[in-house]
């Protein structure tokens, strides 16, 4: 089976029921609809950008990168979950919020310990959901809706609805800007690189694509579906935890609503990156591109004076266009 994922060809036992998929290079000599649409979009964006005041400045590039970081880190993790065929998690914002609260509440233990506690909590909560999906084939949408309510309810119960404040300000170091860029941007880049390496260079990464492409066939072929799915969700949990930690540091306190629209923003970035929502296709680097593209479009619209509502509308239209394009492409490739 060949997998179209932008990471080279995976070697794996032949799996019955998984049809051949053309790689990007073999999909045809002519440009795909996705590539053509992306090219048009980029042309429009470039035209809008070059005519927008102060778009091409170092400060603005830094702002785009900074506003990409929080969503981008989560989206990278969500990419692995989506590639594995687990669709999406709808408990992302709630998990990030709980992690943020834990991180701030444990600041008195020291920054290192607080970070470890927060990451461990994010990984545990998310990997548990992954286990239910991976081993018992639970519907991830239903499961994560339930998990989101449970986690959000727990957070409200724990905090009484009031903000969680840190006793010390050791976390301030996470707001630092080495070489002029926020630390979260470096974490985003490292996370993307690690995720891409896992997807393209490790057995578990290749198995993720195979499982996402055809889970029953992967199971029949003896692939460790449960274990690999849990690993993907655990990585996602670590990414959500990092986002929660940076969100907490940036806002210096954590309320139940801190996660805001993180869930849908992360899903949007993954989808705009071209990852198939049904699984089996996608890459971390493309998700990074998707997150950057959304931030850049929001930035251009803001620079040109469009309202927040128009920015949200543009994001919705963009996601819809990409999802339709990817769906059409995937459908054609399976014929």
């Amino acid at each position, binding site marked *: 089976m060949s997998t179209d994922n932008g990471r080279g060809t995976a070697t794996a036992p032949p799996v019955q029921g998984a049809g051949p998929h053309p790689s990007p290079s073999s999909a045809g000599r002519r440009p795909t609809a996705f590539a053509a649409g992306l090219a048009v979009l980029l042309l429009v964006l470039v035209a809008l950008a070059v005519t927008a005041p102060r778009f091409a400045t170092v*400060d603005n590039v830094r702002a785009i990168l900074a506003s990409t970081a929080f969503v981008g880190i989560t989206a990278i993790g969500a990419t692995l979950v989506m590639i594995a065929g687990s669709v999406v998690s709808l408990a992302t914002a709630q998990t990030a919020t709980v992690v943020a609260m834990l991180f701030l509440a444990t600041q008195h233990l020291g920054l290192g310990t607080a970070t470890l506690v927060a990451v461990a909590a994010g990984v545990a909560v998310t990997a548990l959901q992954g286990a239910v999906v991976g081993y018992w084939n639970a519907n991830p949408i239903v499961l994560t809706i339930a998990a989101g309510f449970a986690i959000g309810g727990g957070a*409200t119960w724990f905090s*009484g609805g009031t903000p969680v404040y840190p006793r010390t300000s050791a976390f301030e170091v996470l707001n630092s800007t080495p070489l002029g860029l926020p630390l979260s941007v470096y974490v985003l880049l490292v996370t993307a690189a690690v995720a891409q390496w896992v997807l393209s260079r490790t057995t578990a990464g290749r198995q993720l694509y195979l499982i996402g492409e055809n889970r029953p066939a992967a199971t029949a072929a003896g692939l460790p579906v449960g274990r690999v799915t849990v690993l993907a969700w655990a990585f996602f949990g670590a990414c959500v935890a990092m986002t929660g930690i940076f969100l907490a540091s940036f806002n210096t306190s954590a309320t139940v609503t801190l996660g805001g629209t993180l869930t849908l923003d992360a899903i949007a970035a993954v989808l705009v990156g071209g990852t198939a929502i049904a699984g089996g296709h996608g890459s971390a680097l493309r998700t990074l591109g998707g997150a950057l593209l959304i931030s850049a479009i929001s930035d251009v619209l803001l620079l040109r004076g469009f309202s927040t509502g128009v920015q949200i509308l543009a994001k919705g239209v963009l996601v819809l266009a990409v999802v339709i394009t990817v769906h059409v492409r995937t459908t054609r490739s399976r014929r």
Partner: protein
Amino acid sequence: MFGIGSLRHALLTGALGLALLTTACADNTGSSSSPDGDSSSLQGKTIALVGYGSTNPWGAYFNKVFTERLEPTGVEITDMTTMDPGTQVQKFNQAIAQRPDLVVVSILDTQAMAVPIKKARTAGIPVLAVDGPPDPSVADDVMAVLSDNEKLGEFAAQNIIEGLEAQGRDSGKVIVLTGTKSMLVTQHRMKGFDRVMATAPQYQVVEERDANWDPKLSGDIAQQLLAKYGRDGVQAAYGMADYMALPIVQAAKQAGFPVGGKNGLVVTSSNCFKAGIDAIKAGELYGTATEDPGTIAEQSADYVQRFLGGENPPRTETVKEERVTAANVDQFAEQCSHA
């Protein structure tokens, strides 16, 4: 050994059991009845509290103070709080069906709540709006204990003007990150803000953006606006709540802008939280204003006692708001530190 099917059933049963146990053991803070309280004058009276949900820190503290303040009177409060505008309409309609002696509502969507308020009037159920005003079309149908949002906006403008003048600036550009613009609360704050800013035309508002009461969105917009105008292009910023102003501070610091002091960005807010008080003390936030949930909860509870006790309180009462800066921050630190 259990099979997968048995395990699933066990898990399901366990989850249901846990849910039932949680329900049974939960402390029902939503309704209170204290016949042993120091006043039984409201014994047998019922209130439907269709307020802000406890997922919102402001709402959580309001609900706590309001409930605790009325508990000794013996009044029964049904908790129907939410932060979802659609759910609020449903709960308000349910409240009407239960025919309480009073519905207390903190309106999330003024237009959507107009029809339910009319229904309450038709049903003869009195409604008390707290914090934000109702839609003007039903303003005469409700009693109200309101935050003075225009005053809060005025305070924010005063903070900006005072801060820029203290830096010796003859001119300055200001960015504004508002709460949800469709809310009357936001519109009233901007009305007061614009009125005072108009008295200092040397300071110009160059951007007014809807940040939807969202701290993360506030940070994103601030980063982009600060990049758009550059270090010399913006001298002051107004985030409508402390949790919106502090992301502006962080965005400025990450972009290399000095904040506060003799030549840094002057940042103000207009309703206080503990984090804002700490930031004022640290010199990063020039000022804020009260609109703290405890004060309005106390006044609302007092209004309810008077109304249900048979008095005839004024149809509308406005909570006195206070401006908070470094000069008087200690005076308001406790009042502002509950949310």
